[in-house]
């Protein structure tokens, strides 16, 4: 028996050593992260970037929400790194499998997570997949990026919510939105004074259409 014990120990040691040596599977997951501002530089909170404080050194690609301090990020990382992000409370986490439908149990939380960020979410139902959700969010963020670059403002005033209507916007703000939409050749002919921002932003996000969205290491 004494001769057997060292052998078992050796095997266990080898097993323990071998676990960290194996390359873990890389998983791409999508998150909506807060933007970290350092001076006049912006990058994703928690993730390592040029001027940032985040230490999570992973492969990432983010689409900012224009002047709004949120980003839609694709993160290509091992599960252990995703776990760091999944533990954060100020992050919207999208399930890894984008082609799953939104479940009944997750429906309310998904809607609320988006609406809390000023992103229309009430349109989501269980017939939609998470890919539908992420592509809509990206489409809306791209509109917000152009709007920020052209007019230096968010897509809606901070004091308004999604239930506010087109007529609640100032005339100048409405004109800025129209100008931005024109650069994309988007259609806004159905917008009236009583159209809510929820409907307007949903339409603007949808009109990105089927254009591929490049994240460097993946395409959505």
């Amino acid at each position, binding site marked *: 028996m004494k001769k057997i014990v060292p052998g078992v120990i050796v095997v266990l040691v080898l097993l323990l050593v071998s676990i960290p040596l194996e390359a873990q599977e890389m998983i791409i997951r999508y998150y909506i992260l807060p933007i970290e501002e350092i*001076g*006049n*530089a*912006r*990058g994703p909170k928690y*993730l*390592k*970037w*040029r*001027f940032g404080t985040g230490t999570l050194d*992973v*492969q*990432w*690609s*983010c*689409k*900012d929400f224009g002047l709004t301090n949120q980003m839609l990020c694709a993160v290509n990382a091992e599960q252990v790194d995703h776990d760091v992000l999944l533990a954060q409370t100020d992050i919207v986490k999208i399930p890894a499998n984008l082609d799953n439908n939104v479940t009944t149990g997750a429906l309310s939380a998904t809607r609320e997570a988006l609406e809390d960020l000023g992103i229309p979410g009430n349109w989501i139902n269980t017939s939609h997949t998470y890919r539908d959700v992420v592509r809509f969010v*990206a489409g809306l963020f*791209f*509109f917000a*990026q*152009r709007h*920020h*670059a052209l007019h*230096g403002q968010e897509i809606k005033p901070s004091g308004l919510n999604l239930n506010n209507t087109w007529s609640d916007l100032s005339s100048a703000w409405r004109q800025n939105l129209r100008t931005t939409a024109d*650069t*994309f050749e988007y*259609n806004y002919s159905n917008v009236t004074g009583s159209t809510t921002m929820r409907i307007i932003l949903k339409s603007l996000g949808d009109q990105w259409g089927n*254009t*591929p*969205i*490049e*994240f*460097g*290491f993946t395409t959505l």
Partner: protein
Amino acid sequence: MALPATDTFTNSDGTSLTSHDSSWTHNTPAAFDIQTNAVAANANAGQDYAAHWNADAFDNDQYAKGDIPAISSTKYIGLSVRVAASTDDFYAFTSDSGDASYLFKHVSGSYTQLSSSGSTFSVSDAIRLEANGTTITPYINGSTTGTPGAQTDSSHSSGSAGIAGFDDTTTSRLDNWEGGNLDVQISVNTLTLASSTPALTVSVETGALVVVNALTLSSSASTLSVSPGAVSVAVNTLTLTSSTVTLLDVAVDQTITANTLTLTSSAETLTVTPGSVTVITASLTLVSTAQTLLGVAVDQTVTASALTLSVSSESLTVIPGAISITVNALTLVSSTGTLTVAVSMTIAVNTLTLSSSVPVLTVIPGAISVIVNSLTLTSSAITLIGIAVDQSITANSLTLVSSAETLTVVPGAIAVTVSALTLVSSAETLTIVSGVAVTLGTLTLTSSVPSLVVIPGSISVTVNVLTLTSSAVTLTVLGGLSVTLNTLTLTSSAETLTPVPGSVSVVTTTLTIASSAETLLSVAVDHVVVVNALTLVSSAEGLTVIPGSVSVVVTDLTLISSAETLTVSPGAISITANTLTLISSATGLSVLSGITVSLSSLTLTGNAETLIVVPGAISIAVNTLTLIGSAEGLSVVPGAITVSVTTLTLTSSVQGLAAVPGSVLVLTGSLTLASSVSSLTVVTTGAQIVTLQTLVLTSSAVNMIFGALVIVAFDLHIKRQISLDMNIIRTVSFDMEVG
């Protein structure tokens, strides 16, 4: 200056970039200078800087590239695209030697990193940054490997190419900079524009190539527009399925090659604007309404192996110019299809079928040749060809099968050659104006009121076989014409072949008039009518020869119906009929003076048939003359007339042989009066000689009345009591029986 712009930064160290070349603009003041004949950042304000090339306007889709001759730690150098004219807005790709490379953007001076970092630049690296639509792509040595990769971002849509960097340095430099527009090379395996108002607009400069293997524009108002320039559009399969789709609005100097082009919806338009445009379509089908296939202007070549216009209102319109259209098979199957071809064009159509109502093949005057191997018009109201002067139309087979079809040839030096022409419907008209030669191998007019009308002029109409089978068919040939008919058959009533006076020659090998009320020939002066076989089978048929130097030669003349009349008016007219048979009652053969009527066999079988010979230099030679019916009469009017009857038989009552006084010689080899009240009456007392080989009076009340007449009867049999008042000069055998 012309793009691409380049700079090798050859200048003294420390020279500001804008001093080195005013084509550069610093987006932040004095951020770059020349170092070791390259460019380096020379400011350290805690941010990245950009400068851009201002001497050219860049397309939205652009690139910047350069080489890295030196790189050091914490000193960043790189490229920028879509740099704003004056504000701090751009995309950039920079690196140092110890940290990483970064892809980022500035929006109103605010830095946003687009992705995690990439590998650092190394000395001699060739770096490149592209902005194409909303895709920003960095490259190191031609590859995205080791870079952040292509990123979608929409903040900046336009600007100029330039450089970027950070910190004041001489050790991180960029050289051999170049900025320009991305080449437009669109290669699309399958392109589908499925929603409303999508537009694929390609605005390209010279040298662009658009290749679309399969292009489907399925929605309304889909548009593929290619702006002018030396543009090639190659579409293997192009399908337009929706209404109001405009396929190609292609301007000058362009070539469009469509192996298969199908326009399936209404109002589709393939429009080629004037210029040296070549449209090559292996198979072109227009299946919808209101399609306009080609509006092709001058100096263009359109080649369509198979062209089918199947819907109404389809039009193939070729605007005047030096255009050649070659269509192997052209089919217009719908109503109101129009194939309109203007001047100076050659149209070769191997098979042209116009099958619907109102398709029109219209050729406007000019030096046009229309060659149709097989042309078929199957519908009503088809106007085949309105062809004007200096045109040549050759149709090997031409069939007009519907009503109101018209082949109209307007005056001019036009030659129309139709191997087989068939008019089978009513109201068909083949109208040929003067100065035209019409050659018809076979002409068949089968319906009522089809007409072949030839208007005066130097026109030759040659018809090998002409058949008029319907009523009211008129073949009218005016003066100065030559009509040659090998076989002419008029089978219906009221058919008329009327040559109007003039130097007209009508030659008919076989002429048959089978219906009633047919007027076979009205021939005026100076005409020659040759009829090898003439048969009048119906009542009221007439062969009328108007006075003049007309010769009517009839080898076989048969009048089998009542009321048939063969009338030859005075003049130098010769009528030769080997066999003349008048079968019906009231049939008359009237021969006027100055005419020679030669009848080998003359039979009058009906009642009231009359052979009347009017005085004049007329000779009537009848080998066999038989009067079978009652009231038949052989009347010989006085004058220098000789009636020679080898055998004369009067079989019916009231038959009379009357010779009017004068120098009339009646020679009768055999005279038989078989019926009662038969009369053999010689009225005159002149030098008339009646020679009777055999005279038999078998009936009562037969009278022989002679004036100063010489009767020579070799056998005279009087079988009943008769009243005889004669001067019998000689009888060889006189056997009188008195009852």
